[in-house]
């Protein structure tokens, strides 16, 4: 069915691109989108596509500040209620206007259906009360300081209530309808998703591109080859080995951006593990040369850090960012103090192929720890096994993990130090942190809350339940004919991509 179109967008795209007036934008992704059910996935690249088809109630701007998008005005009525009013004239791709009904339908679905994957992120919402066609109240179960963070991401993409109720979910999933600047044309699984501009977009029709094609190319070298031959305009996740190639190739260049993902070693503080001793944990922190990891293993694709809460996140602590501990002497000292003058043997679980250069990083860490006498047995695991290992709490001394934060709210990051959550897994407990966590959870005062989070970060940086390594970069190869700067949230928002 697709053969006719296929030829024009990919194979011969290269030739057209060089002519400069090709109005088809082709983007190569590493994996396919999962579904058009915006509430039932937790996949960044899926959201990157949805972002063009759906609007959220709020959205981050270029400075990472949360701004209303579909919402015109809003007002906090009390600790648990916010009243919002929608912009006028917003239309779905099928022509229906956006109303409070749709908002209620959308938010209550994700907040109450516990089989949805996004449910945990929206279960805090109790209900949505309709005031009039465009006005509604969002009511939470308890004071919810990060409500706006939540409403500025995929869960609040607005679904067309009537369309879905009339045609059923199956129809929606194969013919999705949103309010966004681009509307759905076709989806050939594991091959491509094609979008075209929406004429009645409430901010005016996007004129830049006639068609946007998201192609799925899982194999790194193939994706890069497509970029180099002009088959695609944007290639995500270009491996460091090819950065030079892309830059040197005429007509393409690398665009890098710090992501919101931090790579860390999660240590096990359970009684009996050497890492139960804070000095051992510190020793490990001191023994690892984060700078060298970032420079050699990642070819500069990472920024060393001691906190997970990166810039742009609520509660970011700049003192702990772009810095790291590295001192072999100190590490050895600490180990001796802890009673391991000759080091010890530990197991390090690591996924492979999940994060940028993850296997290389793990192997380098093992090499670094060996220098202070810690013999590391690496166990690489395929992702699903890795997840299973974690779920079954079979983790040993340490495992390597990369954590993002789609809410851009530091509270979510520091929540990982909560003892209750990791009982039997890391068994880390710090009373001071516990107190601060509880205090911040319902604190509706942003300044105070920010302080509390920053404080937790400081404590953690010293107590080292997790050894923070670096924040990874997003490495995107871009054809020079277009203007594109990848944002920190890894979205590919087409209205921001222009021809040169």
């Amino acid at each position, binding site marked *: 069915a697709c053969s006719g179109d296929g030829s024009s967008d990919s194979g011969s795209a290269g030739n057209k691109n060089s002519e400069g007036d090709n109005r088809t934008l082709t983007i190569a992704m590493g994996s396919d989108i999962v579904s058009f059910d915006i509430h039932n996935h937790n996949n960044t690249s899926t959201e990157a596509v949805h972002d063009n088809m759906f609007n959220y109630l709020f959205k981050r701007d270029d400075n990472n500040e949360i701004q209303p998008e579909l919402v015109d005005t809003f007002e906090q009525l009390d600790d648990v209620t916010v009243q919002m009013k929608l912009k006028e004239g917003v239309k779905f791709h099928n022509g229906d206007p956006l109303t409070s009904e749709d908002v209620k339908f959308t938010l209550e679905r994700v907040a109450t259906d516990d089989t949805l994957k996004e449910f945990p992120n929206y279960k805090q919402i109790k209900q949505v009360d309709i005031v009039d066609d465009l006005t509604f109240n969002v009511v939470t179960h308890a004071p919810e300081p990060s409500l706006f963070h939540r409403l500025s991401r995929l869960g609040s993409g607005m679904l067309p209530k009537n369309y879905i109720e009339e045609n059923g979910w199956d129809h929606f999933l194969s013919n999705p309808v949103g309010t966004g600047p681009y509307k759905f044309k076709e989806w050939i699984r594991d091959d491509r998703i094609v979008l075209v501009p929406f004429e009645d977009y409430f901010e005016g029709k996007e004129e830049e591109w006639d068609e946007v094609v998201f192609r799925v190319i899982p194999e*790194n*070298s193939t994706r*890069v*080859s497509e970029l180099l031959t002009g088959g695609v305009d944007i290639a995500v996740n270009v*491996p460091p*080995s*090819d950065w*030079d*190639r892309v830059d040197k190739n005429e007509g393409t260049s690398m665009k890098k951006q710090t992501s919101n993902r931090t790579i860390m070693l999660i240590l096990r503080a359970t009684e009996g593990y050497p890492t139960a001793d804070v000095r051992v944990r510190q020793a490990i922190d001191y023994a690892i040369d984060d700078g*060298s990891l970032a420079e*050699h*293993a990642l070819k500069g694709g990472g920024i060393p850090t001691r906190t997970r809460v990166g810039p742009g996140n609520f509660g970011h602590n700049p003192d702990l960012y772009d810095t790291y501990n590295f001192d072999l002497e100190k590490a050895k000292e600490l180990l001796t103090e802890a009673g391991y003058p000759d080091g010890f043997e530990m197991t390090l679980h690591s996924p*492979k*192929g999940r994060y940028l250069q993850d*296997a*290389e990083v793990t*192997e*380098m860490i*093992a*090499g670094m720890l060996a220098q202070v006498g810690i013999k590391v047995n*690496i*166990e*690489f*695991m*395929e992702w*699903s*096994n890795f997840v299973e290992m974690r779920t079954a709490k079979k983790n040993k001394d340490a495992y390597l993990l990369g954590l993002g934060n789609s809410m851009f709210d530091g509270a979510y990051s520091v929540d990982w130090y909560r003892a209750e959550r990791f009982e039997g897994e890391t068994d880390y407990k710090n009373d001071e942190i516990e107190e601060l966590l509880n205090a911040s959870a319902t604190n509706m005062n942003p300044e105070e809350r920010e302080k509390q989070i920053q404080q937790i970060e400081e404590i953690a940086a010293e107590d080292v339940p997790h050894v923070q390594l670096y924040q990874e970069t997003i490495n995107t190869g871009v054809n020079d004919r277009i203007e594109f700067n990848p944002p920190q949230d890894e979205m590919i928002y087409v209205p921001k991509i222009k021809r040169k």
Partner: protein
Amino acid sequence: MSANIQHTADPIGIKSEKKKRNAFVSLSKSLLKSKTGTFGFLIIIIVFFIAVFAPLLAPHDPNAINPVKMLQPPSWLDGGESGYFLGTDNLGRDILSRIIYGSRVSLLVGISSVILAGIIGILIGLVSGYYGKWIDAILMRLVDSFLSIPNILFALVFLAVFGPSVPTLIIVLGVTNWTAYARIVRGETLSIKEREYVRAARSLGVKNVKIIVRHILPNVISSFIVISTLSVATTIILEASLSFLGLGVQPPTVSWGGILSDGRDYLATSWWLATFPGLAITITVLGIIFLGDWLRDVLDPRSQSRS
């Protein structure tokens, strides 16, 4: 009968004593006669030698990371560093040493899984072919079932479930490959069962198990050897493919497939990462297949007709 009633016995017995030790000599002679056989044999001997003496032969620790010497080209090329004959990889490890060590796992996985598959397959094939009837029917349906799932697919699912490690890899490859043996051994058993020497033994009242062990098994072994050599070759390639899918032998254990697959992102920029392990696989597989072809010619009774 036709010309194949030829045999070497001399009627007068002049040369009879010489004959005994001739078996080995004539085998080696026939090996030397076949150019490809000799070539294959030599390669296999060399690879075995390398695998056994890897620690003595490898110039470096195969897992020693050296951030300063990453992606050095082979020493005999411009910019190559002496001491790294085949260059270094993305973590500065010596590729030659990795290939030398990799031979161990590749051979281990290849050979052990084939032996495992052989044991299962021969057993099932013998039982199925010898006893026939419903046992045969059931076992053959089992074989059909396994045959209709592609090897790599089965391995993929199995490894995803149990996690890739050398023992699981051996088991899964063994479990996926046994069907070939079962089928061939069954077929052979069916025909050998009707040979007159088996009927002679049966008419004597020799027990079934003994007939299988003494009369049938030794005569199916040769076809096992022939297909198993080929199987070792395909297994080595299969391991590489599984590595490509992220389910091969996991580092720090080194296997050729692993090195090859790790190097694939560098094919365009640092070709030596993937090319040398690829060559190692190709040459070894070539050797094994050549040796296997020769063995088939020697062991296949059909091609033995003229002595």
